[in-house]
């Protein structure tokens, strides 16, 4: 199988990741923070090591400000529900994934108004488009770092700078960039960073994280045991415990830790360069195919590792099925859980077909995929 669906979840994982999960399950998978026997301490140490590695990757100065979550959606929900209240305005873009769009819609029932920053034809959000939506009531700007449909990378540093100057909380959805595009929460002026562990960070599913800048207090969505301050009727007021009630996914976090280490050793710049090389190779073939429209920016330097196309006649779902069954190529078709982006690109009816190469894909695989697509479209 040739796997080009890394935008959904990365596969395969580095050997060190699968080995770390196996070792955790076989050797020390006790409950971190729920005892002081040596396995519990080792578990807690492994969790802290994961926090440190991820913090190093994202320029986080205090690793305790990084909490583990189930995935990026969970992290985004924690940030949105944990900070917004009645009377607040929220700015998102008209390209956001359902992980932001759906909570925003649900929050409107609680009196939170959502304003949409308009993207350009390539599906990219400008500083100006965000600025236009700011009101005296704007509490938060929540923008995706890169689109999971168009692949364009948004100017988060500039948006973050503006948000900082205006005293607005800035949350970044790094679902498509964490692990393959450089992120520094200090330089990029990020207040909250939500990221998945199972995509670019190469960890197992069921992992993710949320960074919360010091000085910002997020209301917990869940309350329960933390192994600390147990005498209190409420969860502790300090991180990470405040936002990590219940037993954590230690085997997943052990794997994620090794995924982060792999990224640190390899370097995001090198990974992005590799993915862009494959994207360029596929892009150059796709733009020459009749009846095919490439979504997102034409300048590859503005892209992350996502390349979606729409077809004049073919149904993307049908094409994805043939690629899978006849050619052994895994891609994703449909709306990609991003109906706003589909609408922006005018593909709401049929959706699009997405190739999302990862760190382990090769130029030969990209060539084979493009040959296969050409044959399907020529029939």
């Amino acid at each position: 199988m040739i796997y080009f669906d890394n935008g959904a979840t990365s596969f395969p994982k580095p050997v060190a990741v699968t080995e770390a999960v196996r070792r955790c399950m076989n050797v020390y998978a006790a409950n971190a923070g729920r005892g002081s026997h040596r396995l519990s301490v080792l578990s807690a140490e492994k969790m802290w090591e994961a926090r440190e590695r991820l913090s190093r990757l994202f320029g986080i100065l205090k690793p305790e400000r990084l909490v583990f979550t189930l995935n990026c959606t969970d992290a985004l929900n924690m940030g949105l529900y944990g900070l917004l209240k009645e009377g607040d305005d929220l700015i998102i873009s008209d390209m956001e994934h359902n992980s932001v769009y759906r909570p925003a819609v649900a929050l409107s029932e609680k009196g939170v108004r959502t304003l949409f920053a308009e993207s350009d034809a390539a599906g990219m959000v400008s500083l100006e488009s965000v600025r236009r939506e700011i009101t005296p009531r704007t509490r938060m700007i929540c923008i995706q770092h890169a689109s999971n449909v168009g692949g364009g990378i948004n100017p988060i540093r500039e948006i973050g700078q503006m948000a900082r100057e205006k005293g607005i909380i800035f949350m970044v959805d790094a679902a498509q960039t964490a692990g393959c595009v450089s992120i520094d929460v200090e330089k990029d002026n990020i207040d909250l960073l939500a990221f998945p562990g199972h995509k670019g960070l190469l960890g197992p599913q069921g992992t993710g994280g949320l960074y919360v800048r010091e000085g910002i207090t997020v209301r917990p969505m869940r309350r329960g045991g933390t192994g600390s301050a147990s005498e209190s009727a409420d969860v502790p007021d300090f991180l990470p415990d405040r936002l990590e009630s219940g037993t954590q996914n230690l085997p997943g976090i052990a794997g994620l830790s090794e995924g982060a280490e792999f990224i640190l050793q390899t370097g995001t710049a090198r990974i992005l360069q590799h993915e862009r090389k494959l994207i360029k190779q596929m892009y150059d073939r796709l733009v020459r195919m009749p009846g095919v429209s490439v979504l997102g920016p034409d300048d590859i330097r503005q892209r992350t590792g996502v390349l979606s196309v729409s077809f004049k006649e073919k149904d993307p779902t049908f094409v994805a099925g043939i690629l899978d069954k006849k050619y052994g190529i895994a891609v994703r078709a449909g709306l990609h859980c991003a109906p706003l982006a589909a609408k922006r690109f005018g593909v709401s009816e049929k959706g699009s077909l997405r190739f999302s190469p990862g760190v382990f894909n090769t130029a030969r695989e990209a060539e084979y995929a493009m040959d296969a697509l050409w044959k399907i479209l020529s029939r």
Partner: protein
Amino acid sequence: MLIQLQSMSEAVRLWRALGEKGIRAEVRQTPASMRRGGCGYSVRLPENALSVAEMTAQKMGLHILGIDGSGGG
């Protein structure tokens, strides 16, 4: 000596930091006699390492909840 901290995370952090300084310490559950209720974690260390541990904890922004000279048994 026992230094009581807010959580297991904090205890592990101090324990690791002391280990890097060559101080043999261990993470322990805070004894009932020392804690104010509920559960908690402490770092057990030699008495002559107390001042280094306190400074290290302070530098790391850790919250020391208490110090017990008995070593917690």
